[in-house]
């Protein structure tokens, strides 16, 4: 999800440590194995490197830098280490890592470099190499986003596991006075050919005395025991008995509760407030004015200013908040509306050709000489994240030290933001990351963390838990931006596609022009268009925008895959055959496309829905975060013209499928998430204010509306690529294409509806 952020990061990082770059070429490359400070260990516990500790009771503790927000990363990551270590999975447990450069997320940054995904050229490699060096040296860049956790830690965790295994074997060999080569590890024990055996716990102290192996040999895929298996989630049990701790569940002693209301107008703040009526209510400790909070240290924008009530119970805080009389400074955006933003986008496209993000062949000539052209205009709205757990954070500021329980995707940035807000060094900030009740990109921003930290200054050392109401969460999101896109295609006299031109308008989310990622998924398309131009016009509004599950892919897949479908129809070709031809020599894409078509019985006519309604089906394929996903949607419409999606077939190539169960879960979840947006999701603005407030008027899909989903995973030996986000982009165009197949009507605006 951090596409946008990571571009900023590159800049920010270079800015911060630019001076360090000089002389690095001579320095040895630091491996991602040992932390700067040795890991803290408990009684009878040893650390074998920066990623794993072993206890006398045989517990293997994996140091976990990545947040768990449902995507299953913590389970997948632990599997990587446990497999190479030959640990007993039942003895594996997790502990939150500290902030250290070895945990910095390199993949999310390097993947965000402005190169074509298929570009493996020198410039990209050199930039990636340099960036890698920078990231390895600067702590605080660990974050969970961009579907990157397993990609990033695929090698470090396996190397750490293999290294730990070698040390345990070394310890056993020394104990038994036998050559290490005669020993092997299996399921949490080291075994010798003679029949001797010892558990990891029994060997831990000796293993810790062994030197770090200089080289380790990683397993071949055939040797994997856990990787590739549908291992159950490590977080299952506590999430079924209520004992899992999310942000809103942390209970430090003496906890106070805070409730907040922020200016309803985007960009607004508090002009004045009168807390007299609130302050006399039971349990109220303090009423605090909060200035607008920056989105994060690396993202533009800020969250509206507001007033918070701190009280002894959550209800006392909420009740008193309604009694605070607040005068708002609505700021410059008080006249803003969805219509005015829409007009701005239209005017931008009327008046500018846009900045070119992709140009191949001779587009102007190709369009001019085309025997036939088609044109279409697509539109997507603002979208909220609406995580089930609203934004919240708990903070305590005592004796100059800030302890912050932050359900955040960006622990590193959160730590820095708290330090800055409180004017203390980052070494005095302790960020604890509980489970996240959903993230989807919203929790990469640190505005709510800063608010909690500022409230913690007001409580004489008592911890305070700030919880946004659903209404505040809905009205103060960083939304997926609204976009308008004009598409034009040209065909020769034989009906062959010869020209492809798209120009979009919308927010670039504050990116400098040369790092603009607005056309992600459109400019770096897999289609081999003979003559193509993909351009973008940046149009900003006062509405805060941010990273929403799959970022710009969420709109660009809709534009591209819908219009490709229009092109297929325009030349009378089958949508699958048309795409396959356009994919040229890209066998990976074609394999995914054809597999989806095969499972869907694409060549056979589609029968009626279970209730007898006539069905249509559509296909879409899209690559994001390194993974290729194709989806076929089967849809019908009711007599009242309501759209129903009955079944979705989903095929993904995400490299080696580390845990097929988790991959299936993510495909299903991403489809439901994308369908909620495709069928209903829309945030609208009137008088500068977000009009949606709760799940009645921003209504995600419910069980009765959820389609059957069939997922197929392509077997691959490539390094793992993203899984959390790539399932979302194809669903909206797949449904729109299915509706076209069913009705002959092309819906070009999200959410999809028949007028």
């Amino acid at each position, binding site marked *: 999800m951090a596409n946008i952020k990571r571009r900023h990061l590159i800049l920010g990082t270079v800015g911060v440590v630019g001076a360090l770059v000089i002389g690095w070429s001579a320095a040895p490359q630091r491996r991602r194995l040992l932390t700067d400070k040795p890991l803290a260990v408990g009684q009878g516990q040893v650390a074998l490197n920066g990623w794993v500790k072993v206890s006398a009771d045989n517990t293997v503790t994996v140091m976990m830098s990545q947040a768990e927000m449902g995507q299953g990363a913590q389970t997948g990551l632990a599997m990587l280490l446990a497999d190479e270590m030959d640990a007993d999975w039942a003895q594996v447990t997790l502990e939150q890592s500290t902030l250290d450069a070895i945990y910095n997320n390199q993949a999310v940054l390097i993947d965000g470099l402005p190169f074509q995904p298929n570009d493996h050229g020198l410039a990209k490699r050199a930039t990636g190499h340099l960036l890698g060096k920078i990231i390895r040296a600067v702590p605080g860049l660990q974050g969970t986003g961009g579907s990157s956790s397993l990609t990033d830690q695929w090698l470090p965790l396996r190397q750490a596991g293999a290294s730990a295994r070698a040390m345990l074997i070394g310890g056993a060999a020394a104990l038994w006075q036998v050559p290490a080569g005669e020993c092997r590890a299996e399921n949490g024990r080291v075994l010798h050919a003679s029949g001797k055996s010892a558990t990891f716990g029994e060997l831990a102290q000796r293993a810790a005395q062994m030197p770090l192996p200089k080289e380790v040999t990683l397993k071949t895929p055939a040797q994997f025991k856990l990787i590739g298996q549908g291992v159950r989630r490590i977080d299952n049990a506590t999430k079924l008995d209520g004992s899992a701790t999310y942000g809103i569940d942390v209970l430090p002693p003496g906890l106070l509760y805070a409730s907040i209301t922020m200016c309803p107008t985007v960009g607004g703040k508090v002009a004045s407030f009168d807390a007299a009526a609130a302050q006399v209510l039971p349990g109220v400790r303090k009423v605090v004015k909060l200035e607008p909070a920056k989105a994060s240290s690396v993202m533009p924008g800020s969250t509206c200013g507001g007033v918070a009530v701190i009280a002894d*119970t*959550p209800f006392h805080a909420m009740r008193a908040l309604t009694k605070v009389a607040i005068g708002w400074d609505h700021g410059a955006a008080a006249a803003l509306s969805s219509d005015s933003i829409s007009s701005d986008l239209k005017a931008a496209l009327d008046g500018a050709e846009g900045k070119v993000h992709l140009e191949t062949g001779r587009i102007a000539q190709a369009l001019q000489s085309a025997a036939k052209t088609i044109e279409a205009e697509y539109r997507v709205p603002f979208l909220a994240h609406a995580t*089930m757990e609203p934004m919240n954070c708990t903070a305590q500021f005592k004796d100059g030290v800030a302890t912050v329980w932050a359900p955040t995707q960006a622990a590193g940035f959160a730590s820095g933001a708290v330090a800055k807000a409180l004017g203390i060094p980052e070494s005095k900030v302790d960020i604890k990351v509980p*489970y996240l*009740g959903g993230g989807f990109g919203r929790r990469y921003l640190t505005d709510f963390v800063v608010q909690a930290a500022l409230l913690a200054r007001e409580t004489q050392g008592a911890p305070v838990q700030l*919880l946004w109401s659903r209404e505040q969460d809905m009205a103060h999101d960083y939304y997926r931006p609204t976009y308008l896109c004009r598409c034009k295609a040209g065909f020769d006299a034989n009906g062959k596609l010869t020209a492809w031109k798209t120009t979009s308008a919308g927010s670039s989310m504050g990116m400098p022009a040369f790092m603009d990622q607005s056309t992600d998924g459109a400019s770096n398309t897999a289609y081999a268009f003979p003559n193509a131009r993909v351009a973008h016009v940046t149009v900003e509004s006062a509405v805060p925008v941010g990273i929403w599950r799959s970022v710009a892919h969420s709109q660009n897949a809709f534009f591209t895959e819908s219009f490709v479908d229009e092109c297929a129809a325009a030349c009378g070709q089958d949508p699958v055959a048309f795409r396959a031809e356009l994919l040229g020599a890209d066998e990976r894409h074609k394999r995914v496309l054809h597999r989806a078509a095969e499972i869907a019985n694409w060549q056979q006519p589609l029968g009626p829905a279970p209730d007898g309604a006539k069905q249509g089906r559509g296909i879409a394929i899209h690559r994001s975060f390194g993974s290729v996903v194709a989806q076929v949607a089967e849809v019908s419409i009711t007599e009242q013209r309501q759209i129903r999606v009955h079944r979705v077939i989903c095929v993904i190539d995400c490299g080696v499928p580390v845990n097929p169960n988790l991959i299936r879960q993510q495909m299903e979840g991403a489809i439901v998430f994308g369908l909620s947006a495709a069928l209903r999701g829309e945030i609208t603005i009137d008088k500068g204010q977000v009009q949606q407030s709760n799940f009645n008027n921003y209504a995600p899909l*419910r069980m009765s509306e959820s389609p059957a989903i069939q997922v197929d995973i392509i077997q691959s030996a490539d390094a793992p690529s993203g899984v959390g986000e790539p399932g979302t982009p194809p669903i909206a165009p797949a449904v729109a294409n299915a509706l076209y197949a069913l009705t002959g009507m092309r819906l070009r605006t999200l959410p999809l509806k028949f007028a």
Partner: protein
Amino acid sequence: MPILNVNGKSIPVDAEPETPLLWVLRGELKLVGTKYGCGKGLCGACTVHLDGEAVRSCVTPLEAVQGREVRTIEGVQCPQIDALRQAWTHVDVVQCGYCQSGQLMAACALLKRSPRPSDEEIDAAMSGNLCRCGTYTRIRAAIHVAAATAGRTP
């Protein structure tokens, strides 16, 4: 002081009668397995059992539960809960998990009413419980699994 009968214990609660049950559970009693999602009875994350029926604790005031039995995810008593938890695990339902306390409480109440529910019954009973991770089809499958196992004589 109001007395709350929760998870089999009678506990005096220092809270105003209009306080929503959700906030009594979470704030006063530190029973935080029951979640806040919307505050308006729209999402089901706060579902608890009141005399065995699934209710939304965020819109149920403390005064309305006097003399009645409240059960939360921490102390749920229902013949099918073990089968449901096993089925949830077996089917790999959970993702972020935030809504799952409410889902399980709703599923318990459903199976009590209808031990072998059809898809339509499940949809009707469970569609008040939102899940942004989209675990719906697995929840439906898990309820069928639980119904089948709980139905067997031990």
